[in-house]
């Protein structure tokens, strides 16, 4: 039995990700939980997140999810999704600036669609006005041959919904990048961590394939 824990810290809809894991996994048991024992006994752990980073970080700290995640990534594969990915970084610009977990070096920045006297407003590569949130299906270029990309065509579209994006420091490694006014980190890998800005549980075939790959990943890289 492959035990999967979806970390629940009260932020958003975890039903979809649990259902998607049950749909793709053979012989998996999915727990949506904030219980440290359950999470630490799981074989694979999902670290989701939606909503505002300040509220997410407050709940992560209040429920000691930060300590649990630190323990998880020492020993087993962790898939961070959306704001879960952003929470791993050093700091986010959102909510006037919020310190995050610092498990991956980099910043979380706002898409600039308004522009200013010094910085022109960004447009998408087809000339469309850059709407924020970045909402919908965008293409992810794979920059490595990580096992989580197995069976997924390079350039496949995944479903995104976010206003802030991860900008990695030079020593960190993106696994996938996407263009939306800027090129940003759509996926990253660091040891036992794989993190994605898009929602695999909402990205139909490609997303389900990535979740299935995660369930058979042993954390090596």
């Amino acid at each position, binding site marked *: 039995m492959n035990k999967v824990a979806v970390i629940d810290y009260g932020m958003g809809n975890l039903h979809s990700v649990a259902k998607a894991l049950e*749909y793709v996994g053979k012989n998996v048991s999915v727990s949506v939980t904030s219980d440290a024992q359950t999470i630490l006994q799981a074989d694979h752990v999902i670290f989701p997140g939606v909503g505002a980073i300040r509220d997410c970080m407050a709940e992560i700290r209040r429920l000691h999810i930060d300590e649990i995640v630190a323990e998880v990534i020492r020993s087993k594969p962790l898939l961070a999704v959306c704001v879960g990915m952003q929470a791993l970084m050093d700091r986010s610009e959102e909510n006037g600036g919020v310190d995050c977990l610092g498990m991956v070096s980099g910043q979380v920045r706002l898409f600039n669609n308004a522009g200013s006297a010094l910085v022109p407003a960004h447009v998408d590569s087809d000339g469309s006005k850059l709407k924020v949130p970045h909402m919908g299906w965008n293409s992810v270029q794979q920059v490595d041959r990580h096992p989580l990309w197995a069976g997924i065509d390079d350039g496949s579209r995944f479903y995104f919904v976010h206003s802030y994006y991860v900008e990695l420091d030079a020593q960190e490694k993106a696994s996938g990048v996407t263009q939306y006014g800027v090129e940003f980190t759509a996926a990253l890998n660091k040891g036992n961590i794989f993190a994605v800005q898009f929602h695999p549980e909402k990205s139909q075939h490609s997303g389900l394939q990535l979740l299935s790959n995660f369930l058979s990943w042993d954390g090596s890289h």
Partner: protein
Amino acid sequence: MALAKRIIPCLDCDKGRVVKGVKFLDIRDAGDPVEISKRYSDAGADEITFLDITASHEGRETTVHTVEAIAGQVFIPLTVGGGIRTLEDIRTMLNAGADKVSINTAAVFNPDFVREAAERFGSQCIVVAMDAKKVSAPGEKDRWEIFTHGGRKHTGIDAIEWAKRMVSYGAGEILLTSMDRDGTKSGFDLPLNRAVSESVSVPIIASGGVGNLQDLADGVLEGKADAVLAASIFHFGEYTIPEAKRYMADKGITMRL
């Protein structure tokens, strides 16, 4: 590669059954929203919008189960609208597996509800649905106002100002329906769409009036919509989703093919 424009089929449901009819050739149960959603998802729909027109409280319990069933089988985004009036309504639908909720009349009667909802659940899941009608006389500068109750009640609120206000309150997306065009199959109100899309920073879903594939393309190319919503042209099998996507792509629109 750019962000793809989206095609969103809309299902109107009453007590857990799709109404207005869906006529697929080989579908087992034309009223089953789960089977229909799965069919659309398999065909390449980019999202599904589920509009609940159930009046009774008991009926709404059914809706929750339906949303749960769809979310267990359909792995694309799901928006639920209709009768969303309280934070508890939103929580119930998100917990059932909806990714977004669409708020319409409740926003007009209590604009702060949108602010509270966005603060509590995040802008990414708050869609504000606005029903607009042209009120300017011929020859005058175009002007549209917000109507409620299926276009029967005039609020006197300017549509552009309303869209800006809803975005400033935290709406993450606008579902814009032209009450002049809804059901007419004469195409979207393109000047309305363009005016709203150019006034706000968030994505716009164009709705109301689609009769053919060129209408969908025009919604994006002329109306500057980020997504197009349609019901009857897909439900009655006049066009399939892959046909629509191919047509739009051939017009130079970025699509997920």
